[in-house]
Structures are given as structure tokens and as C-alpha cells.
């Protein structure tokens, strides 16, 4: 029998999940489209032209124009850049905090564990959106603040996850072996245990990106996320809020609305696919 590496096995299992593949394709599509936005449209997403305001979709403006006469197709593309990067960066922030704190809590236990986990509990006990709104109104809306707020508020879940993994793994033979031959704790933690705890983390990070995109949209919709004129899907929806736009100019809110819906759904498919693929019990069914 040919030896297959672990990652290849996972990839094969992932490929068998049709929804996950669909999600991945859509996700890659969105990423490409956002990255190459300048090549796909000639319009500057922030450039208003009041003489062309509120135009329905046409050959000139594929998705029409908004109330400032800006091209909605361009804004949707560039908005994707911002929404995706807010999602990725905030998850990056939450992971880096969560990984360190979770690893320390799980590995050392005792006081470290108690203190860190109680702090996590405190973060958990606040309603997320309300806290985000409060912080954002204190520090003022900006892209970076949004990233930082979302990142800082969501670290406890990855910390908890990692702590549980560390509790389980720190008494395994390989970890004990590493400790016994004199590896220092940080080496044991990050070189030996962490790689084995990566799969649940990856799944939760993927799903975290989706929820960060949603939260960014929510904050921006309330005017507390990405400030104008930069487009994000959330603040595009915010601009489409007045009744007459909702009722008679669907081109202003359909593109960002659909984009958010589709991307969050596809990230969730990918996350589910990853979880199933990583799950060793799936092997039984092969």
C-alpha cells in the first residue's frame, strides 16, 4: 500500500465534500476579484459624480450608481477588499492573543489558568455587539479600530479551544519526552504541542473570519465601522437605508447584501468541510 501523507488524506476527505469545494471556489473567486479590482473596473470607488446619482444598472455602470453617483460595481469590488481584510486581520489578532494565552493557561495550569480563564469569562459575559459599539464610539470609527476591536473581543474562544487541546496534549508521551530531554517550556509548547492542536484552531479561525465579516458589516451599518468614503459592504448597506432607496432602488443594496450573504455562507461551508476533514473518526467511514 502506498503511503499517503496526513495532509493529503485530509485534502482528499475535504474534496469529497461538494459544498465545501463550492465554498472554496466562491471564496477564491471573491479573493481574486477583490485583489484584482483595479483591473476589473475603471471607476474609482470613492469618486463621486453627483450628476450621475441614483442611476439604475446599465452598460456604463454594471450595478448602477449610488446617491453620490459612485459606481456600485467598483464599490462592491473594493468593499470586498476591506471586508475580507477586516475579517482576516481581526482573526489574526484574536488568534495571536488567543493562542498565547490559551497555550499558557493549558500548559502551566494553576494560577495562570485561573486568571486567564476568568478574564476570558469576563470577555464572554459582555454582549459582543454592544461592547463593540461602545468601544468604537469612544475611539472613533476607522478601519484599524474595527479590526482591533473585533480581534480583541473574540480572542477568548480560540484561547479556550487551545487550552483544552493543551490540557489533553501536555501529558502525551511526545510532550513528556520533549520536556524530559530538557526542552524549555516555550519550545515544548510551540514546537511540539501547538502543531498537533492546529486543526481545531484552523476550523475555528475559518468560521471566525465569517463572523468578523458579519460584525464589520453590522458595525459599519451602524456607522461605527469603516468610515466613509471608503466602501465596505456594511456601510454600503448603511447608505441604502432610506425608505425610498429600499423601496425603489434595489441596485444600491442588493450587491453588498448578496456579497455578504454568499461569502459568509461559503466560508461556513469551507469551515464545516475542514472540520469534517480533520476529524479522525471520518477515517472509519472510508
Amino acid at each position, binding site marked *: 500500500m502506498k503511503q499517503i501523507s496526513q495532509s493529503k488524506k485530509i485534502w482528499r476527505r475535504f474534496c469529497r465534500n461538494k459544498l465545501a469545494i463550492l465554498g472554496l471556489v466562491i471564496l477564491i473567486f471573491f479573493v481574486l476579484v477583490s485583489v484584482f479590482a483595479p483591473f476589473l473596473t475603471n471607476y474609482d470607488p470613492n*469618486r463621486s459624480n453627483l450628476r450621475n446619482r441614483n442611476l439604475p444598472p446599465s452598460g456604463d455602470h454594471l450595478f448602477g450608481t449610488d446617491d453620490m453617483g459612485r459606481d456600485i460595481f467598483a464599490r462592491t469590488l473594493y468593499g470586498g477588499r476591506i471586508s475580507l481584510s477586516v475579517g482576516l486581520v481581526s482573526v489574526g489578532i484574536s488568534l495571536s492573543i488567543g493562542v498565547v494565552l490559551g497555550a499558557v493557561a493549558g500548559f502551566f495550569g494553576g494560577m495562570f489558568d485561573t486568571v486567564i480563564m476568568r478574564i476570558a469569562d469576563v470577555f464572554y459575559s459582555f454582549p459582543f455587539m454592544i461592547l463593540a459599539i461602545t468601544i468604537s464610539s469612544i475611539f472613533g470609527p476607522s478601519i484599524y479600530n474595527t479590526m482591533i476591536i473585533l480581534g480583541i473581543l473574540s480572542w477568548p474562544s480560540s484561547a479556550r479551544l487551545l487550552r483544552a487541546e493543551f490540557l489533553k496534549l501536555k501529558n502525551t508521551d511526545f510532550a513528556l519526552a520533549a520536556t524530559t530531554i530538557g526542552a524549555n517550556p516555550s519550545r515544548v509548547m510551540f514546537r511540539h504541542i501547538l502543531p498537533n492542536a492546529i486543526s481545531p484552531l484552523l476550523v475555528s479561525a475559518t468560521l471566525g473570519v465569517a463572523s468578523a465579516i458579519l460584525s464589520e458589516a453590522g458595525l459599519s451599518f451602524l456607522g461605527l465601522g469603516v468610515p*466613509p*468614503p471608503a466602501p465596505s459592504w456594511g456601510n454600503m448597506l448603511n447608505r441604502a437605508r432610506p425608505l425610498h432607496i429600499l423601496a425603489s432602488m434595489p441596485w444600491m443594496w442588493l450587491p453588498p447584501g448578496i456579497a455578504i450573504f454568499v461569502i459568509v455562507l461559503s466560508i461556513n461551508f469551507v469551515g464545516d468541510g475542514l472540520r469534517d476533514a480533520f476529524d479522525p473518526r471520518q477515517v472509519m467511514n472510508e
Partner: protein
Amino acid sequence: MKKQLVIVLLLFVLSLSVVVSAQEVPVLGGTFRYGTTVNPRGMFNPILYTETYDGYVIDVVYDGLIEIDANLQPQPKVAKAWEVSEDGLEITFYLHEGIRFHDGVELTAEDVAYTYMTILHPDYTGVRFGTFNMLVGAQEYKDGTQATVPGIEIIDDYTIKFSTNRPHAPLLSSFGYGILPAHLLAHIPVGELETAEFNLHPIGSGPFKFVEFLTDQHVTFEANEEYFFGRPNIDTLVYQKVSQDTIPIFLQQNRIDFIEISPDQFLQVSDLGHIDTYIYEALSYSYIAFNLRQERFDDVAVRQAITYGFDRQLYVDLIREGFGIVANAPMPTASWAYTSEGIDPYHYDPKKAAEMLSEAGWTPGSDGILQKDGERLEFEFLVPDGSRLTEQMALLFQQNMEDIGIKVNLMFMEFSAAVDRVDAREFDTFTMSWSLAVDPDPYSIWHSTSLWNDPGFYNEASDRLIEQGRLETDLEKRKEIYADWQRVINYELPSMFLNYGVAIGAINERVKGIDADPGPYGPLVGRQLLWKIWLAD
């Protein structure tokens, strides 16, 4: 210009189309809901408040000696009559007997004296001293060198005399301030009045009694059954907080009876059928203020260049959909002192703007932003949120500035937070608007000593003209002085003026007894008619 004509025609057609219904008998009872989009700050004290929205509350809770009618003329209120001495230096007010505050205590000349003495008091924290500093002995009292003000003299319980040491043209129209109940406030040191509990639970002698104020919800009043001039026809008055976006729904569902709508809602609201709309030129203007304490804005060329670089006509024509008139000085078209003679219109000219900036020593840096001596021409623009049109204006401004090499960072902020920043002078630029008093005297906003002079404007000629304007009692000569003053401001541009207000009042057709041919104060004459209107079923 065309748009202006359209508006005038519209005004004309509308005033024709609203036929005043035959004398109907007022119906008692019901709740009238007056929509507002901004919260009051909770300073319901007529001599201390500074925000229009606090003024809304004060308007119905208090009565002043006089009130200004729809034609901008002073009319008797608490004072049944007044007498001006021949030399114009003395005014004697004769008060109605039997006017009572909401707690039942009678209003006398004592209360009137308390109200105006407090404004002159050395510890007074408000901004209105300048309105009355010409009263005999006012300055000495303020400075603490004298214990009384000879210029305020109680003749008897119902007669009070004010005398000035120089002619003061706007004097009579300044006596509209709500009269405070001395028996409730006299024991509080004037310096602590600002924080008095009273300011949140006001008691006056006006047509409505204050009931409650809930931020972001409403301010409620009940009819003052004992109102001296007759009980209001409605039982309850509510100032209902509404978000700009939901105004049409609130009107449609009869959840508000009156509100000023923004131009982009005009078509939608006029389609509602049971809502009548009135268009009127208001005594107001909007502006973008520069912080002149900063070196870059201290240069008049920079201010003029920024003004040339902003397409205000486009803003009025497209964003305001023609409802408004581009302003070039702080004197609205609705005022008798307005002039267009010798006023530079600063037509949009980005090329000229760029030239002026380069002449002033600003050169493009590597990022395209203008620089001078290492300082980038980049500033924060404080924009109170809540109004979509203001937001759009801000975006257009940002883009227009970018075109001439100026970087503008938008800072959207809740209205009262923005006011706090402005009061603390922590701003580069901000936008707001002024609703003006009936007298064109610009002292309280533009004199260099005035606390409302937010930009920090000081100009000798301007100060001198403002002072002259107050002294001159001949109307034609006064008009000339203010025309000169407008030309000074038009050149100096301590703020960039955006537009004079053209307001649209939307009112439910069940509301009767309104002014169907509104002047600058709209169909309810500010809030004066609230106690006279009634609701048909």
C-alpha cells in the same frame, strides 16, 4: 438662479393652493406630536441654553415679555404694552396682572428683573451678556464695582423700566427671553445655576407644562389649564425623536403630525396625500467654520481658496435638490439686512483655488498633498451625524478638496458630542448651521468678544461695524452698515458659507389653525402656534 426662481414659484403656487378653510370651531383635546431629529441637551433654561433643540422646549414652557410674530414684528406677551422714550434710551414694560407660573405663584416685575439681572451677574456662565451690556450700569455690575444695575428699575409689581447708556437698535427684540421664576431660583448662587436641577425640570408661565424628557425618545408636555391667554386646544404636546430615515414612515402612519423634512424626502412626502408641505425661506444659514487659531487658516488666501475650490452650487442644486440658496455672507435672504451688492459669489473655480494656494506658498508634496514648511494641508472635518444631506455635503467637500491638493479627514460625530468639541475649541473645521434671531445684529456670533464666535474671528473693521450697527436706530443707515459688514465678512470668510436655509415643513392635514402662508418661522410660527392649533378627527 433658476432654482431660486423655481422655489419662489413653488412658494407662490403652494400658498395659492392652500385655501384657508372657513372659520371652524376649535376642537379640544388630543395629542400633537412634533417630530425632531436631534435630542435636546437638557438645558431648559432660557438664559443659559445654547442649542436650538433646547430652545424648542423653552419656547413652549416659558413666555417672554414680547414675542416675535410671523412677520418678524415684536408683539405683546407677558408685557401687555411698552413705551419707548423719545431719545430711544428707555423702554418701560407694563405687565399683565394675574399671570401665574406653573406652580401657581404670580409672575411680577420681580421675576423679570431677576431674569435679566442674572444675565448681567459677574458669575453668569451663559453667553448672553453681550446682548444687554449697554444697559446703564451693566458693565460695572459685571465687573463687580457696583452692586446694582440702575438700568433695570422695578417701578411697581407690574411695571419695569430698562434704560441704556447709548442707543441700541436691537434692544426691543431682545426682550423675548423666557421669564424665570425668581422664587425658585434666587437662592441658588448664579455661578451654580448651570448645574441646577431646575434646568431639567423647568417651570415657566407658558402654555405647556413640562412633564418628562427621555433622551432619544421624547419630551412630553401637558396643557397648562390655567394659561393666562387661554388653555391650549390640545391636551398633550410631544416632541418625538425620529431618525431622519424613518420620517416618511412616521408621517405616513400618523405617528408625528409635524416635522421639517429634508429636500430628498420632499417628493416622497408630498405623495402621501394626508400630509401638506410648506416651503419657506428660513432665517438660517449653514457654514463650514475654520479654526482661525491655527496658522494655516489664519491666512485669508487659504480660506478663499478653499471656498473657490468647493462646488457649493452643485451641492445646493443636486444634494439639496434646489432647496437652498448659495450663501456668501452670514445674512440670510429672509432678513431685511441681506444684500448681494458687492458680494463676491466665489463661483466654483478649482484652478483659481490651486493658484491661490501656490501663491500662498503651498507646494505639492510627494503624495500630491500640499505642503508648506513641512506642514501638510490636511485637516479634520467635524460633521454632526443625523443628516444625510450634511453627510453627502461632507463627502463632496472631501473630494473637491482632494482635487486641489488638500486632504480632509471626515469625523462623523453625534451632535452634542460635536458641540462639546466645538465649545472646547478642539476642531480644525466643522459644519453646522445657525438659526438667527429676528434682529440682524451679528454681535453674539461674530463680534471678537463673543463666546459664540467659534472660529475665533477678529477683525477691526468687522467689530467696528457691528458696534455701529447696534447704535444706529435709523433703519436705512443700519442697512448700509450691515451691507458694509457683509462685504467685510465676504472677503475675510472666517467661515465658508454654504447655503441659506429653505425649509420644508410637513404637517398632517388634521392639524388646524396653522399659518398657511408661512413666513421664515414656518407654518407653526416657530412653536408659537402650538397652543392655538387643534386637531380635526
